């Protein structure tokens, strides 16, 4: 259910990394106008840009394996006190709890995306579905 104060943005883009900046910029545009947010909006803008970029990159690479016939769906929903981002994929799915951060003293090149998402958002879930899986990321606004 959406109340008259809610903002909802639903985006479908081709399964290509060239559209990461579009999704990130839309996230920034939303953050910058979010007068209901208590903290620094410029920082929020960067963080939304980042988590959108990381989640979409994972959908493109790990779920859709760069398949150009696929699309990525992203939903952003804002109500009075929470911002919720959903990134859908149609891949094999994975187990969010199994992913661990690379140790800082063995500088491997991968595996920091989910760590950043978890650090910057308040709640992160991944649900497997029949037609699509979804990564849900929430952040309190007040």
């Amino acid at each position, binding site marked *: 259910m959406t109340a008259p104060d809610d903002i909802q943005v639903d985006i479908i883009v081709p399964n290509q*990394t060239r559209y*990461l900046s579009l999704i*990130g910029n839309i996230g920034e545009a939303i953050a910058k106008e979010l007068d209901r947010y208590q903290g620094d909006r410029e920082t929020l803008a960067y963080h939304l840009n980042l988590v959108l970029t*990381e989640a979409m990159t994972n959908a493109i690479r790990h779920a859709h394996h760069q398949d150009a016939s696929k699309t990525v769906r992203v939903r952003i929903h804002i109500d009075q006190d929470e911002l919720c981002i959903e990134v859908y994929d149609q891949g094999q799915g994975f187990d969010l709890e199994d992913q661990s951060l690379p140790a800082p003293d063995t500088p491997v090149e991968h595996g*920091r995306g989910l*760590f*950043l998402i978890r650090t910057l958002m308040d709640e992160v879930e991944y649900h497997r579905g029949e037609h699509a899986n979804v990564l849900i990321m929430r952040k309190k606004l007040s």
Partner: protein
Amino acid sequence: MQIDVTKLQDWVVLRIGEARLDAHNSNELKDTIQKHLDKGDTRLVIDLSQVRFIDSSGLGALLSGYKNANLHQGKMVLAQLQPRVESMFELTRLNRVFDIFPAVEDVVHGGDA
């Protein structure tokens, strides 16, 4: 991807001319660094002054360059990070791995410290 190459004493400076360093262009950055190392430019400064956004793939590309420079008995350092970009290095603790300089000129004076 726009990268300007200049020399500063015995360092080669790669100035990234992109506002975003993300999964879309990080492989190209990685390859460019690799090419410089292969042709003997083993002391590299990556000038990030134009970069206002970096994601984990961008960090990964820089890390790859850093490790490859070490393998070549060389050195790769970073300079002129914007505050929000720098905060990504702090969040991932990669500021403990990289040598990060406020300005490109500072590298010449302190890069071997």
